[in-house]
């Protein structure tokens, strides 16, 4: 175990992967000479050279599709799409090539591709640079979607993703890069959600950049006599319903926190599953804390108002517990 930032944890994971397997390479815009937009890959070019830490032109559709091809061709590409915002340009290759390939070829071609992208808002980057679209990817059969929300997961998920013979997308929330924490060096599982805090009164279910806010809310609730359980989804597809439902069956109350816009959010899917599978375990209507349904504005006070905040999580949990 050692202490490091989320950014360093991702970098260590990349370094380890590049060292461990000659088939692994990292490709994306400015991953090399620039050092990565979020400085994740800084130093890797020097260590592994420009073939394996490969700067690409601005052509998201092209290089993501090239990642699919390289994966089919026997390599283990890690493609960095700078942010989820730009991944809209590459959507066709992710959905229509990576995700469908194995099934539509009758099982002949697997696509062992890892795509990493930064996601989320909170840095005043305005409407076009603040999307949270994990839910869209989590809708697509054939891919696995991960959201490391801790330093340990940032450190451990990549190796597990590379071991997966099918496409895996890893979402790194921009607000997490400076998070400090403990990281092991064993791969972590990429199948299960995690209880980040046990509690008896209400389940707070979240992922990615909303985890720190949710934990903070849980602390505030504790001070208020509400014992909140915090579930970190970790794996957005396939969802670990067992862990989610077990928690709700214990606490009988659920609040789902998700930085996506509410309508059609991943939080909606979680609420739907709870309603379908655990309706009679509920002591209160499930609630969502999501982003307001507006493009994310630049001005700080408006951006704050648009995004899920600790106070809103606390308020929702109190409401779920019949306290207001």
């Amino acid at each position, binding site marked *: 175990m050692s202490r490091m930032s989320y950014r360093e944890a991702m970098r260590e994971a990349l370094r380890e992967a590049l060292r461990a397997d000659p088939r692994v*390479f990292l490709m994306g815009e400015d991953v090399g000479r620039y050092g990565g937009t979020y400085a994740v890959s800084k130093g890797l070019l020097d260590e592994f050279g420009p*073939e394996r830490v490969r700067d*690409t*032109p601005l*052509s998201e*559709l*092209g*290089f*993501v*599709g*090239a*990642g*699919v*091809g*390289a*994966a*089919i*061709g*026997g*390599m283990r*590409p890690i493609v960095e799409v700078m942010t989820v915002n730009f991944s809209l340009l590459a959507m*066709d*290759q992710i959905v*229509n*090539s990576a995700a469908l*390939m*194995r*099934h*539509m*070829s*009758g*099982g*002949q*071609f*697997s696509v062992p591709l890892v795509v990493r992208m930064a996601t989320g808002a909170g840095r005043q980057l305005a409407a076009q640079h603040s999307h949270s679209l994990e839910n869209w990817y989590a809708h697509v*059969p*054939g891919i*696995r979607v991960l959201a490391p929300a801790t330093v340990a997961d940032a450190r451990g998920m990549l190796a*597990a993703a590379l*071991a*997966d*013979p*099918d496409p895996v997308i890893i979402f790194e929330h921009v607000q997490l890069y400076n998070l400090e924490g403990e990281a092991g060096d064993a791969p972590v*599982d*990429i*199948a299960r959600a995690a209880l980040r805090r046990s509690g008896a009164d209400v389940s707070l279910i979240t992922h990615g950049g909303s985890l720190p806010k949710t934990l903070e809310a849980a602390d505030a609730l504790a001070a208020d006599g509400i014992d909140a359980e915090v579930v970190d989804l970790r794996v957005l597809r396939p969802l670990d319903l067992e862990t989610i439902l077990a928690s709700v069956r214990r606490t009988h109350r659920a609040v789902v926190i998700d930085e996506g816009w509410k309508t059609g959010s991943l939080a909606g899917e979680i609420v739907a599953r709870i309603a379908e599978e655990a309706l009679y375990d509920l002591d209160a209507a499930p609630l969502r804390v999501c982003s307001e349904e507006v493009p994310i504005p630049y001005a700080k006070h408006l951006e704050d108002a648009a995004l899920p905040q600790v106070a809103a999580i606390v308020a929702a949990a109190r409401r779920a517990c019949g306290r207001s």
Partner: protein
Amino acid sequence: MIAPPPSGPVPWPRDRAHAMLADMVRIRRMEEKCAEVYGAGRIRGFLHLYIGEEAVAAGAVRALAPEDNLVATYREHGHALLRGVPMNAIMAEMYGKVEGCSRGRGGSMHLFDASTRLIGGNAIVGGGLPLAVGLALAARMQEAGRVTACFFGEGAMAEGAFHESMNLAALWKLPVLFACENNGYAMGTALERSESQTDLCAKAASYSMPAMRVDGMDVVAVHEAATAAVARVRADGPMFIEFRTYRFRAHSMFDAELYRSKAEVEEWKARGPIHTFSARLKAQGLLTEEEFLAIDRAALAEVDAAVAFAEAGRLEPVADLARDVHTPGAAA
């Protein structure tokens, strides 16, 4: 406007010439049968026939080595067949049977075959291009000496995917053969209504990529050019090649062909790759009418056998629907 029919001596020995002819005839007969059984409802979905364009697949696919990759479009029956996918497996695929080359999951537009390195069958126009770049990148990083041939229509060249793929391949000097099958139309859109620059080879220059244009109705010209191009790609990096060709049939089975005249179709049919090639061979004494009929009979017999095979094929059990969404052994 339309060039004169291919003519002149065929520089091949008798056997070779017969094999090339047989290749084209096999595609033709197979597809005629597909259209027929489609009419009878045995094949469904979209069906895009290659009829008229056979010289391209025959000349170009045969220029590849077994270790090379082939990426094609939804108009790929001919490529699959000549790449070595058994006609039985192709026909069974169109019938949606487990014995199909994609277990019936893909149909006409998604023929796949790992053993011959046929990586689709792609129904997104331009979708195969980035894939081909990646396959070539893998080959280069593995020093595999493997060429990836990517076939696409001239209509695909307007897509951003074409641009991004050409640039990546040229920038990284990857062994991709960009093989454009210019049949003059993208569905109902004629080239001059889709491209501001109709000289397609001029586009390659904007990626510093060498280019050549070939009469795609002449199997001899196609094969010679493709052989040279493949050698060059293997040694030096990507190349663009335009095959001028024409589809004699509708775009798919749902096309009223409002956008072109019968006369134009007839003019092109006069340049048909099978009859012009056989006429040249006959003129040179390399083919007799008897031999031609034997080739045709063999193709028809192969087609009949394929249909029988497909008819007799099994349907995948519905219980196996979710099979192959993920690779067995992936984390639960």
